[in-house]
């Protein structure tokens, strides 16, 4: 079921806002193309290295999100894109044109499972250089040094993986939207 949503968004940066859809109890967000047109984002996208887009959604005490990675392959002249949604579903594609990249970018990312009639969300989008996986290195160093680090995860789930792997990298830029959604 797709519902038309009432979006009351406050954007600190005056950017275009994400649009939201509800389908089968899953809230999805389609991100604005203006993010890709931001000068610092465009510069990173052209670097030939991965640009990571970390989408974190807070609904009260609940935390969820999704992650997108985009890398332009300089030799094949295609964009290698990946999307990891809140439930761990991974989608990988090769897109050949800026138009196709924008179309993929605007495809709604599944963010949150909810049965509420109304949700108030804080949506943060961080744009990070390089791909994910910083904490693993630190943990290995502690473990090898005889410290207190542990070798495997504690069941933090996909949200941990989405957020924990990338959050300590310094964002190139970030966006925040506060939204109040009537879902029924």
């Amino acid at each position, binding site marked *: 079921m797709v519902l038309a949503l009432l979006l009351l968004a406050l954007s600190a940066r005056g950017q275009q806002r994400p649009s939201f859809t509800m389908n089968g109890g899953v809230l999805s967000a389609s991100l604005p193309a203006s993010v890709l047109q931001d000068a610092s984002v465009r510069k990173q996208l052209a670097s030939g290295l991965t640009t990571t887009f970390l989408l974190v959604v807070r609904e009260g*005490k609940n935390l969820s999100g999704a992650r997108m990675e985009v890398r332009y392959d*300089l030799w094949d002249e295609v964009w290698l894109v*990946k999307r990891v949604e809140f439930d761990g579903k991974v989608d990988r594609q090769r897109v050949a044109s800026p138009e196709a990249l924008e179309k993929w970018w605007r495809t709604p990312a599944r963010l949150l499972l909810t049965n509420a009639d109304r949700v108030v969300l804080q949506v943060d989008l961080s744009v990070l250089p390089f791909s994910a996986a910083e904490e693993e290195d630190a943990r290995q160093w502690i473990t090898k*040094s005889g410290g207190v680090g*542990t070798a495997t995860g504690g069941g933090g789930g996909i949200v941990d993986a989405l957020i924990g*792997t990338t959050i300590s990298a310094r964002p190139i830029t970030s966006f925040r939207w506060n939204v109040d959604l009537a879902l029924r």
Partner: protein
Amino acid sequence: MIRKFILLLLIALPLSAQDEAFFIERIEVRNHDRVSPDVVIAESRLREGRAYSEAELRDASTRLGRLPFLLSVDFALEKGSERGNYVLVLTLQETRTFFFLADLQPHFDGQDAESVIPDDESRGATSENLALGFRWFVGRRGALHIAFSGGDRRREFAREYAAFSVGYTQYDLFGTRAFATLNLRKIVDFEDTGISPQLVVGVPLSANQTLTLQYDELQARRDGLFSILRSYDETYSQRLISARLSYNTTNEPFFPTRGVHLYGGPIAGWTDGEVDYRDEPYTPYAFHSRFYGIEGGAARYFELTDRDSVWGDVRGEWSSNERSASNVPPDGVIPDENVVYGSVGIGYSHSLWSREQRANGDSRFEMTARYANRDRWIDSDPHDAGWRDNEVFQIGGAWVRRTSFGTLRLGVGYAW
């Protein structure tokens, strides 16, 4: 927010399947004026003709970001000479030839609190309170500097003095990516002093791990000192040797806002001296001490938002000092000592600048709090042996400004 911290501490799974390796046929440094491109490449620990993953390139980027002579470095790939090969382009934002690090945050105390916390520990990463000078890159892998450094840093059983110094750093030592710095220091506090050498050798074990070995020697003489109605002359010599293994993923050299810093290592030292009283009936005496210890610490910095950062750290040190004298000095015995020191600190900082402005530095306001405990065991005097506990709480606020010239911290604190 709490959940976020928990998430950060939980084990994270690397998900990136796109983290393929890039064969770097050439490394090109752009926008360099004063800094030697060879030094930048050496300090990145990357080599031409090898393949690197994005994780390795990111670590190199973070490592370069900690160099005091660079404000920022952008990484990008360009096509190489044949398919599958790449040119790694490093675009620099340099600091100036003149540099300074001024950490001026006096703490007012309600009791004898300030002696508990070493000055360098009030924030986290700095090790000196004042340093300023000029740096020139010479040749392909060398750097010459002249500088003045303050001497307020307190280390158990060792003395540190303000000094003028001339130094040379050789990077990429013998093609190993190691560096060595030789400083020749002229101590300001002494009238009749020779040149005190200092040698620092850093061996990067990986992009984030460094083994640092340091040797300091100080020989000096002061005449006409005065203490409790007695005037005297003093000769003093000190030798310090230390080793430190560190793991560092922080983003800036002095006041980082994100990353991890773990370190630990031993220190040993020897001091010798003579005190020659000018007035009867006091007799001259010579003293000698041998001290050793081990220190370690861990700090974690989190960027909460674009402008806000918090940090927490723990530090500890154990050291022992065995002392002897040729005869009993007028002030009494010279006891052996053991010191156990530990501290826990937290802090918050807020950038006054937007992200775009911070390409050329930063301007931050910070608040800090620290608890420290120093237990001192004195065991030579049978009538006065035992532990002397001293603990202190410290809070402070400061303004931190990083520019292309250096870093300044101005603040004030209170300890009780």
